[in-house]
């Protein structure tokens, strides 16, 4: 079980009083969220609840109207996205955001090189960077992508692309990893590797994942946060959430209705 | 009256012309993000239609104006079906190159058919001459131009705000995906808007002949000005296009009158700085 609840110095990632609105549309209302080191938390909620927006706010793609984002105790609200990545915050995208013409190996090597700040050297040959290439290869092999490492990203199977998403995020050696619907669209026969990949994530990394796939949530999350209409409805263990009547009405019940009406 | 009012008046007339030429591009760029650098080729087409009808077929000036509009609109519909449709999701570069290619072809075709000289046009007598008022001359044709442009502006704004078509256009410009989700046929809407915008440009091209002249280089020379108006005014904004066109028209005329040595430097400098400060245009969305 995760160590959260024991001695808490500071959370790995926290949002405090975060507000965001687009005109009259409120996408985040006084959101408070805390992710302890090594956590495995899930963020669920109906479509349009503001989950991806919250990720964008925490990673720096959006600026909050009010509130703070804290990474390892430091206030990063004013920092640019790439600066937060360098401090250990990584994310994946719900819709694959890869480098289509780069091979898997090139993509991850690039991420490693950027992390190690050697990507500006234009006078040295790429294959001279042994450590970076080796590290990239190890990440790919751990995610079962070793055999396809020389294929361009756009030629990979969809499930492999989702894994490459995670590989790219892991290449920056994050302390906090935000996974935006990692299983979205992955067919059943390719989801085994994905589940294994998520299970294999190091306990040093705090993981928050948005998911609709309840199997994933029950399997990996020690805590579930429910978000509706830009606000956090409640938090609890997966079992507590699954049996909560409010959640059923708002989310799980709605999902069933959606399935019925197609 | 001090000459500055004369400069303002001329600048206003020029700005109105630029507005007519630009408004169509602003809306289509805002809706589909399709970089149509051939927009002024359609304007040029309208101009040459007017010239042909008047000089070779003896039509009266006013009768040629609707034909210029229709010709440009029809040409757009043809090209849109044949080509443009396939490139709505292409890269900026591909759209640029495709439409630049069309500009080159149109300029060469115009030079071949009509030669490279300025086209003469005989305005009807009541449009010639000027009104003397408070010590300044106000050209009647420019008053006419301002009146037409204002009328069209009113019609455009009324259409946008008060008709269902207009509401759909505004929705599609604002958020294409959501508009589709609401059941709006964005593709058909775009085809119509594109044609209307080009038609207006064609009309502008016909009206431009007496003000700034017409020769094959029109398609490129005025493209620059139109792009400035659209970039500064904001994509998809009629009000923005009007404001930017006024600004550009008055600045250009004033610059040439007061500091002719600097020429167009002021225009390009102001444009570049404005785009840097507000990349989405004065009235554009981020």
């Amino acid at each position: 079980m995760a160590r959260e609840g024991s001695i808490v110095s500071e959370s790995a990632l926290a949002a405090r009083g975060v507000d965001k609105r687009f005109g009259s549309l409120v996408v985040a209302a006084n959101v408070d969220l805390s992710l302890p080191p090594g956590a495995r938390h899930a963020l669920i909620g109906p479509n349009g609840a503001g989950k991806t927006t919250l990720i964008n706010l925490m990673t720096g793609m959006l600026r909050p109207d009010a509130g703070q984002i804290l990474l390892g105790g430091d206030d990063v609200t004013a920092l640019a996205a790439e600066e937060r990545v360098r401090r250990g915050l990584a994310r994946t995208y719900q819709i694959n955001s890869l480098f289509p013409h780069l091979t898997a190996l090139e993509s991850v090597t690039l991420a490693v090189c950027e992390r190690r700040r050697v990507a500006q050297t234009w006078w040295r040959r790429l294959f001279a960077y042994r450590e970076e290439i080796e590290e990239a290869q190890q990440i790919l092999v751990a995610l079962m992508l070793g055999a396809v490492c020389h294929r361009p990203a756009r030629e990979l199977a969809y499930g492999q692309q989702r894994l490459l998403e995670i590989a790219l995020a892991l290449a920056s050696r994050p302390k906090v990893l935000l996974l935006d619907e990692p299983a979205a669209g992955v067919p059943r026969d390719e989801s085994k590797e994905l589940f294994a990949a998520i299970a294999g994530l190091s306990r040093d990394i705090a993981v928050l994942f948005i998911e609709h796939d309840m199997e994933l949530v029950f399997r990996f999350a020690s805590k579930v946060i429910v978000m509706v209409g830009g606000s956090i409805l409640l938090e609890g263990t997966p079992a507590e959430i699954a049996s909560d009547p409010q959640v059923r009405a708002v989310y799980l019940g709605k999902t069933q209705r959606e399935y019925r009406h197609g | 009256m001090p000459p500055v009012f004369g400069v303002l008046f001329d600048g206003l007339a020029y700005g109105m012309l630029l507005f007519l030429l630009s408004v169509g591009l602003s809306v289509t760029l805002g809706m589909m993000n399709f970089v149509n650098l051939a927009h002024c080729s359609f304007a040029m087409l309208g101009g040459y239609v007017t010239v042909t009808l008047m000089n070779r077929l003896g039509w009266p000036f006013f009768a040629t104006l609707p034909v210029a509009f229709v010709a440009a609109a029809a040409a757009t519909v043809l090209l849109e079906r044949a080509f443009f449709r396939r490139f709505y999701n292409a890269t900026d570069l591909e759209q640029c190159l495709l439409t630049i290619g069309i500009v080159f072809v149109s300029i060469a075709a115009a030079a071949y058919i009509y030669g490279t000289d300025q086209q003469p046009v005989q305005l009807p007598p009541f449009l010639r001459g000027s009104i003397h008022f408070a010590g300044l001359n106000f050209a009647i044709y420019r008053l006419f131009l301002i009146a037409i442009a204002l009328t069209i502006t009113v019609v455009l704004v009324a259409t946008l705000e008060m008709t269902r078509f207009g509401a759909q256009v505004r929705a599609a410009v604002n958020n294409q995906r959501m508009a589709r989700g609401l059941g709006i046929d964005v593709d058909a809407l775009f085809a119509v808007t594109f044609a209307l915008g080009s038609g207006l440009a064609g009309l502008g091209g016909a009206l431009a002949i007496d003000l700034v002249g017409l020769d094959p280089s029109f398609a490129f020379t005025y493209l620059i000005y139109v792009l400035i108006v659209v970039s500064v005014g904001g994509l998809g904004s009629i009000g923005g296009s009007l404001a930017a066109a006024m600004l550009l028209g008055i600045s250009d005329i004033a610059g040439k009158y007061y500091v002719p040595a600097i020429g167009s430097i002021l225009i390009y400098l102001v444009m570049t700085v404005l785009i840097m400060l507000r990349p989405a245009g004065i009235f554009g969305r981020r």
Partner: protein
Amino acid sequence: MASTTIAEPRAYLQAQMRWRWGEIAFWLATLLPFIVTPDYLLLASQVAIAALFVLSLDLILGFAGIVSLGHAAYFGTGAYTAGLISKWGWGEPLTGLVTAALAAGLFGYVTSFIIARFRHLPLIMITLGIGLLLQESANSASWLTGGFDGLQGIHTWPILGRFRFDLYGYSAYGYALAALFVIFLGARRLIHSPFGLALRGIRDNGQRMRAIGAPTHSHIRTIYTIAAMIAGAAGAILAQTTETVSLEVLGFQRSADVLVMLILGGTGRLYGGLLGAVVYMVARDQFSGLNPQYWYFWIGLLLIAVVVVLPNGLLGGLSLLTWRAKAQS
């Protein structure tokens, strides 16, 4: 699955960088004009200059995805700088070349702060605006640039004290070709470096680059400055070998021509630009009797054809053909 030792991916990347037979053949072929067509050496030097200019555009457009409609600004800066240095008394070509390239590079560096912040239409407009601004300014500052008549009084000293520039063109072509080759080697090295990979990343997905912590603005500024230096070098060589500089070196036509050459040959391959330059310049020479407007008619059709049929240019089409041939055998 074969054992995934470290040697294999490194060897793979290394193999990608090895010199192909086609490349060696190409560079050997560039020596042919000396022997086979000595009457056309001046044209050959023009082609080499154009190829160098296209190379610089490929670096920012083909590899970093920056669409520029005003790249001639840097070409022209290099040309005028080299011309002015010579006019003011120092006609030594190599130092003049380096100085001009640095001047263009400085201008590129300053403008890169603006360029890096924008994309899509605003970027296109800003590059256009910078080019037009420079052209108009050069026109106005006729006390410096000679205005419409151009710079007079350029005299280039012999290279290394020995090779004079004359109407036969041996020195001109040798000089231009040598510069092209040396700079090409540098560009080739850059492409296969981590920085080259980063550029392709920016072109493919700028947003994801930020998400892996890449300082994209810094990368763009770097490549833009390098490309400006190379464009400036090309302009300087033009000024030095033809001993004239006129306003057209800064003009939109030149920016458009270099864009056409690059698209024709194919972006993002280095050799595509070179091929495009050769085809375009030779064709233009062949059809030079034609009214310039009709020339642009065919260029217009060509652009449309390339976009519709051959989006990756001639080189892309060729590689597609060879790939298909291999797949069928």
